[in-house]
C-alpha cells in the first residue's frame, strides 16, 4: 500500500472513530470497552478478548452534559459525557475510569449513575515514585483483571496477557519510530497526519494498527525532507486542532515531538516482556513519563520537558492547555519561569476541544514562530 493510502485509512478512522468501532463490533462480535485516560491498561482488555478504545468526546454541542457537569468543567470531560448521553456510543459495552484528575473521578460517578454500561474504576495511586505505591499499583491491576474476568465472564490467561503485552509493545514502538522519523526528518509527515495516526491507533484493532504502522514506516524510512526547519514541541493534554499543525507548517516550522495524552504519552515506555505480566504492565506505567495529575517528584514535569527539548533540539514550545484543566495549568507558571531562563520561546494557548482557531490566536502563534 502506498503512503497516502495508509494515511488516509488512519485519517478516516481518526475522523469517524465511532463508525469504525461500530463496524468492528459487528464484524468481530467483540465487546467494546472505552476508556477515559492514557492510564488505561489496555493489555488486560485485549487479553480478555475485548476491544479497547479511547473515548475522545467527539460532541461539539454539550446540551446533555450541561445537565450534569457545570460549564467550568473541561470540554474533554463534558464532551465524553455528551458522547455517552447522546447515544453516539451506542455500540459501547463498558468504560474504564483510571484514577486521573478530579474531573475524571466525578465523571466516573456521573457516568455510573446515568449511562447503562459495564463500569470499571481503576483506583490507581496518585504518587508513583515509592515502592509502596508501586506495589499498590500492581494490586490495583490484579483487581482490574479480576473485575474484567467476572464482568465479561472470561478467563485472562497468562499466555493471553503476555501476547497482548507483546502486541501493545509492537504497536507502541512503531508509533514511537514514526515520531522519531518526524524528529529525524522533520516534515516527512504533516503534523495533522501524524496526530491522526496516533488517534486512530487508540481506536483501532491493535494488530491492524501495528501492521499499518509498519507499512507507513517502511515508506518513510527511505523518504527525505529538507533539513533546515524550526523545530516545535507541543505540550499539554490533548491537541485536536489539525489547523494548528498547518499554521505552524505554513510558517516554516514543524512539530517534531509532543508531550500530549493524545500523543507521545500514549506510546511512551514498553512493558518488560521478560517480567511477570502484571508487574510488567505496572512497571511501564510507573516508569514512562506521566501527566501532571500524577506525582513523580516535584520537578518531574520540568525535567522531562528539558529532556525532550534537548533530545529533539527544540526551538520553540507551544503549550496547548484545555480550559479549566487544573493539573496542567498549575504546572505551567514554574515551567514558564524555567524556560525564560533557558531563553526558549514558548506560547500558551488555552482552548476548548472544539474551539475554532481564531484570528487572535493565529496572530499569537505566528508571532511566536517569527521570533524563532
Amino acid at each position, binding site marked *: 500500500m502506498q503512503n497516502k493510502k495508509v494515511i488516509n485509512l488512519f485519517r478516516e478512522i481518526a475522523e469517524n472513530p465511532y463508525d469504525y468501532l461500530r463496524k468492528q463490533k459487528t464484524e468481530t462480535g467483540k465487546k467494546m470497552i472505552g476508556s477515559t485516560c492514557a492510564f488505561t491498561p489496555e493489555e488486560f482488555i485485549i487479553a480478555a478478548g475485548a476491544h479497547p478504545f479511547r473515548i475522545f468526546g467527539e460532541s461539539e454541542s454539550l446540551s446533555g452534559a450541561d*445537565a*450534569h*457537569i*457545570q460549564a*467550568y*468543567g473541561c470540554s474533554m470531560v463534558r464532551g465524553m459525557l455528551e458522547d455517552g448521553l447522546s447515544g453516539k456510543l451506542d455500540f459501547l459495552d463498558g468504560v474504564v475510569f483510571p*484514577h486521573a*484528575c*478530579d*474531573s475524571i*473521578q*466525578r*465523571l*466516573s*460517578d*456521573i457516568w*455510573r*449513575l*446515568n449511562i447503562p454500561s459495564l463500569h470499571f*474504576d481503576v*483506583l*490507581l*495511586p*496518585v*504518587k508513583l515514585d*515509592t515502592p*509502596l*505505591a508501586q506495589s*499498590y499499583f500492581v*494490586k*490495583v491491576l490484579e*483487581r482490574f483483571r479480576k473485575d474484567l474476568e467476572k464482568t465479561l465472564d472470561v478467563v485472562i490467561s497468562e499466555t493471553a496477557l503476555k501476547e497482548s503485552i507483546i502486541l501493545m509493545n509492537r504497536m507502541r514502538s512503531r508509533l514511537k519510530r514514526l515520531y522519531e522519523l518526524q524528529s529525524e526528518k522533520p516534515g516527512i509527515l504533516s503534523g495533522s497526519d501524524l496526530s491522526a495516526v496516533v488517534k486512530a491507533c487508540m481506536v483501532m484493532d491493535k494488530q491492524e494498527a501495528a501492521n499499518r504502522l509498519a507499512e507507513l514506516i517502511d515508506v518513510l524510512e527511505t523518504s527525505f525532507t529538507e533539513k533546515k526547519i524550526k523545530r516545535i514541541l507541543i505540550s499539554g493534554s490533548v491537541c485536536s486542532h489539525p489547523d494548528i499543525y498547518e499554521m505552524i507548517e505554513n510558517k516554516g516550522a514543524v512539530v517534531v515531538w509532543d508531550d500530549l495524552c493524545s500523543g507521545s504519552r500514549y506510546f511512551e515506555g514498553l512493558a518488560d516482556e521478560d517480567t511477570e505480566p502484571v508487574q510488567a504492565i505496572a512497571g511501564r506505567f510507573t516508569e514512562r513519563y506521566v501527566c*501532571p*495529575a500524577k*506525582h513523580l517528584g*516535584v*520537578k518531574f514535569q520540568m525535567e522531562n520537558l528539558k529532556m525532550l527539548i534537548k533530545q529533539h533540539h527544540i526551538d520553540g514550545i507551544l503549550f496547548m*492547555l484545555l*480550559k*479549566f484543566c*487544573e*493539573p496542567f*495549568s*498549575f*504546572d*505551567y*507558571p*514554574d515551567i*514558564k519561569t524555567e524556560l525564560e531562563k533557558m531563553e526558549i520561546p514558548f506560547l*500558551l494557548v*488555552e482552548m476548548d476541544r472544539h474551539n475554532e482557531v481564531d484570528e487572535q490566536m493565529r496572530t499569537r502563534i505566528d508571532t511566536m514562530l517569527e521570533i524563532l
Partner: protein
Amino acid sequence: MAGRLKATKRMKNIMKWYYIEAKYARFLGKKIAWITSGGPVEPLIAMNIIPIYPENHGAMIGASKMGGKMSEFAEGLGYSSDVCSYTKNDITSSITKESPIGGLPAPDMLICSNNICGTVLKWYEIQARKFNVPLFIYDTPFVHTEFTDEAREYVNEQTKEYIRFLEKHTGKKFNYKKMKKVGKLSLEAMKLWKKVLETAEHKPSPMTAFDAFFHLALIVTLRGKKVVVKYYRQLLEELEERNRQNIGAVDNEKYRLLWDNLPIWYRMRWLSEKFASHQAALVADTYTQAWCGVIDYVNEDDFLSSMGEAYTRIHLNVGVDQMADTIKKFIRQYDVDGLVMHSNRSCKPYSFGQYDIQNLLQEEDIPVLMIEADMTDERKFSESQAEARIDAFMEVIKQRKKEKQK
C-alpha cells in the same frame, strides 16, 4: 435576637496565640508543617510539630475580601483564572506576605493528602519547589463504591511511611505514647464537634451554618490538642443553654435550610442577613460535618491503625451517590425545608455531581437553589443575581410550607 456566641471571642484568642506561636516557632525550637485541610494532623501534634493550614489562611483571606486581588496577582504569574483560588491566594501570599496575618510562617515540611482533591497535589508540589522542603503525600484512593482491601493496606502502610518521614525530618523518635493521647483527644474533639452541630436539630436552631464555618477553625487546625476539647465543651454548653431557653440564632426562625459546599467567605454576613430577612436559618451544612463524618471508622484505643480508613472515607473522597445519601440523612435529621448548593468554581470535586445529587434527592421533594460563586474570589460572584435567586427560592419555600400546613 440571640446576639453573638460568647465562645467567638475565646476562639479568636486561641487562633491568635496559635499563629503567634507559629510565627516564633524557630525561637521555640519547633518545626512547622504545612498540611492540607483533610490531612492527618495527629502525628504532627504527637511530634510537637506546629501544623499550619494554608486553606484556613485562604479562608481568612477570603473573609477579609482580599481573595480577588490576590488571585489576580497569581494570574499575573501565569496561573489560570479558572483554577482553585485557595491555591492562588497561598501562592500570592507566600511571595507578597500579604494577608490578614501578614502571611504564613515558612514550612519545614509539607504534608499533602489528596482526600479532598487532586489540586492540593499540584499546590504542594509548587510550594515544595518554592521553599525547597520535603513533601510527604498521604495518598488516599478514591472510594467510588468500595473501600478495597488493597486500598486499606496501602493507606495503613503509608501511616508507617509518614511516621518514618517525620522521624527523619525532625531527627526524633516518634512518640507512640503521646500519639495514643493525641488520638483520644482528636476523637473526643470530633465527637464534641458533632454534638455542637447537632444542637441545630433544635427548633429554633441555636446556631447557623455561618457560625459553624467560623467555629470550625479549631477542629481543622488543632484537633488532638486539649484546648480544642475544652473549647468545644464550652461552646456546646452555651448552645445547649440557648436551646433550653429556646433562643434561636435567627429571629423567629420559620424555615430551615441545608448548605452544600464550602462557604462563600467574602459574603458570609450578607448571605446570613439575606436568609435571616426571610426568617430562614441555614441549620446545617455538608462542609463542617466532614470533620466528624468518619468518627465510626476511628478506633479510640488505636488511632494510628484506623487513621488510614478514616481519612480515606471522608465526604469529598466518596462517590456522588454516597454524598447524596449523606445529604438525605441531614435533610431528615435537621428537618430542613430546602437545600442551597454553592456551585464553587474553585472546587471541582465538590461541585461536579451536584446536579446528580439533585436528581437523587427527588423523592425528598425539597426545593434546591444553586448559587454560582467561588469560595474566595469575589470577582466570580454576582450579588444582584444571587439576591434575585434567593428571593425566588424563598418564595417557593414559603409557598410549599403554607401548602403543607393546610
